[in-house]
């Protein structure tokens, strides 16, 4: 019962916030804008799934925003050049996976700290993006937006697909040996090795998967508007990491669930529109988000001290 305390308390905070909105600003729940708001979070959700897995393995990847931007621009240019979406999606995922593989090699086999490695690749990919794209927006051909469906159908499809991905990955992490390996490596890599797990391979593949998800997330984003902004990935890594941390993914590895990270994302993504609907000045947005993250980290600190004593 205590096991899901964190997930439940974040969900409780979310319910309170939604309840407040229901009383003060019921128009928040109008269907069409609500659907647009939720769909806008799909790319961040896809990234959060990946980043949660990376963090469970006791690593971090701050290059995902840059990977996302590069994949978005690559896919955007391919689509603008006439390639179809069913081909652009796997290519974007492959490009992301390749960037993830570089991170994974450097972290797993050279033993470099992931924060430093991914800081370096974050800056590198951001500069590559800037030099190649020069800030130009990419105009996508008609028919890419909403996967050629109607707006509402396209939004529903994106939401359904991302929730299916979340459910599948959450199940795999919890119930399959490959998923349990992430927790084992994140808790104690040496113990994991002695019990027959290959921590290096596990770490490597987690980064590769993260990169592939960055590519998928980028495509989930670009189908939502007729133009690609090459800066679309900027800051996304922080949003995904914040969602994971708030949702109870332990910063020092080995603990947390994807459903928790999902609830963390919902809470953080609700704060910003809530402030608009409650007519609170925009100055407060980042302060409040920071406070929520701080609360989560402090709660983690207290928990691990209690466990230690």
């Amino acid at each position, binding site marked *: 019962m205590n096991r899901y305390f964190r997930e439940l308390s974040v969900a409780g905070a979310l319910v309170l916030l939604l309840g407040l909105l229901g009383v003060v*600003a019921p*128009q*928040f729940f*109008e269907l*069409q*804008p609500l659907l*647009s*708001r939720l769909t*806008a979070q799909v790319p961040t959700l896809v990234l959060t799934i990946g980043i949660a897995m990376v963090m469970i393995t006791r690593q971090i990847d701050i290059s995902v925003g840059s990977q996302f931007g590069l994949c978005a621009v690559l896919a955007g240019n391919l689509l603008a050049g006439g390639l179809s979406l069913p081909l652009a999606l796997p290519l974007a995922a492959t490009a992301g996976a390749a960037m993830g593989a570089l991170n994974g090699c450097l972290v797993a086999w050279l033993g470099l700290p992931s924060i430093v490695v991914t800081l370096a690749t974050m*800056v590198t990919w*951001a*500069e590559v*993006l*800037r030099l190649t794209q*020069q*800030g*130009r*927006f990419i*105009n996508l051909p008609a028919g890419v937006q909403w996967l050629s469906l109607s*707006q509402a159908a396209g939004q529903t499809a994106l939401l359904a697909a991302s929730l299916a991905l979340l459910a599948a990955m959450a199940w795999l992490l919890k119930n399959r040996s490959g998923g349990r390996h992430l927790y084992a490596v994140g808790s104690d890599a040496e113990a994991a090795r002695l019990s027959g797990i290959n921590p290096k391979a596990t770490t490597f593949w987690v980064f590769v998967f993260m990169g592939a998800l960055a590519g998928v997330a980028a495509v989930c*984003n670009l189908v*939502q*508007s*007729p*133009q690609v*902004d*090459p*800066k*679309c990935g*900027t*800051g996304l890594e922080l949003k995904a990491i914040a969602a994971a941390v708030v949702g109870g993914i332990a910063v020092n590895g080995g603990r947390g669930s994807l459903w928790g990270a999902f609830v963390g994302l919902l809470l953080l993504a609700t704060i*910003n*529109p809530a402030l*608009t*609907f409650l*007519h609170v000045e*925009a*100055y407060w947005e980042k302060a409040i988000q920071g406070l929520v993250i701080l609360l989560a980290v402090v709660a983690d600190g207290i928990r691990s001290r209690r466990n230690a004593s």
Partner: protein
Amino acid sequence: MPQTTAMKRSQFLHSLLVLPAALLLPGCNKSETGASAENAAGAGKKLTIAFMPKSKGNSYFINCEKGAREAVQELGVDLLFDGPTNTDPAKQNEIVENWITLGVDVMAVACENKEGISGALKKAQEKGIKVVTFDSDTTPDARSFFVSQATAQGIGEGLMDEAARLCGEEGEFAIITATLTAANMNEWRKYIEARLAEKYPKMKLVDTKPCDDQKDKAQQETTNLLGANPNLKCIMAICSPAVPGAAEAVKQAGKAGAVKVLGLGLPSENRAYLKDGITQSVILWKVADLGYLALHAAHALGSGALKAGDTSFKAGRLGELQVDSDGAIILGKPFVFNKENVDQFDF
């Protein structure tokens, strides 16, 4: 003693070098020779001009850079181009410090944070480096001249008047800005609000939201604003990525035409929305000309052709431009483009 000797020797060598040069200059009388020779030597040395946008990844500043490079070709100076990848005031200070260490001749900087960068720029001035700002200013004591795309007043009032015209001078509107710390946008907002209070009593500014200079964030903020303020009649987007972002949100909400969209942006990024009648007006100056002018001003300041107190100055193909008493060099009046004229622009 050895120092003095060395100095004397160098002075002697110097006079040997400049003497023939002075003799070659026609029409110089003796008292002017020294100064002319020095000028000639100054012109012979290539100026190093350092040029910094707010953000290197923004297409607005990439167009600025194009204009700057055109001026570099004309003037034959060395250009150092650097800036934050995304808007980042701390990174700007870091780059200024690096340029001080390198000892550049002139810096041209588009400032993200007005006060935040003034310390570093003053330090540069103390080291003898000349400073001009462009696009958005620092505090006046930290630079010699500010190259302005238009006056903040001209932009603020232009935006407000256009919004009022689109709304029939009544109703609610909201602003999307880049960040709440962006100095130039805060100036514009001040004039927007002043104009609103003075001329349009039936209009109401309901909210101002930052979009972090990103289209997708502007789209999300606009979706929220439309939901939270059902009587909204107009979205005013005052940073370039926010204009298409706001337009996309209005389109998705099915409110095209009912909610007007206007803003400061690039024609190329808004063409489709203008033609579809989702965005009504986009206001802008010729961006490349701003970079071109900034570099010309930096060069003129570095070479001594432009000095404090000058009231006008000639900037290459732009001709003679006015300099106001605050040291602002104004590029000209902003331009409103719409459905009809957007195809005349290629940037």
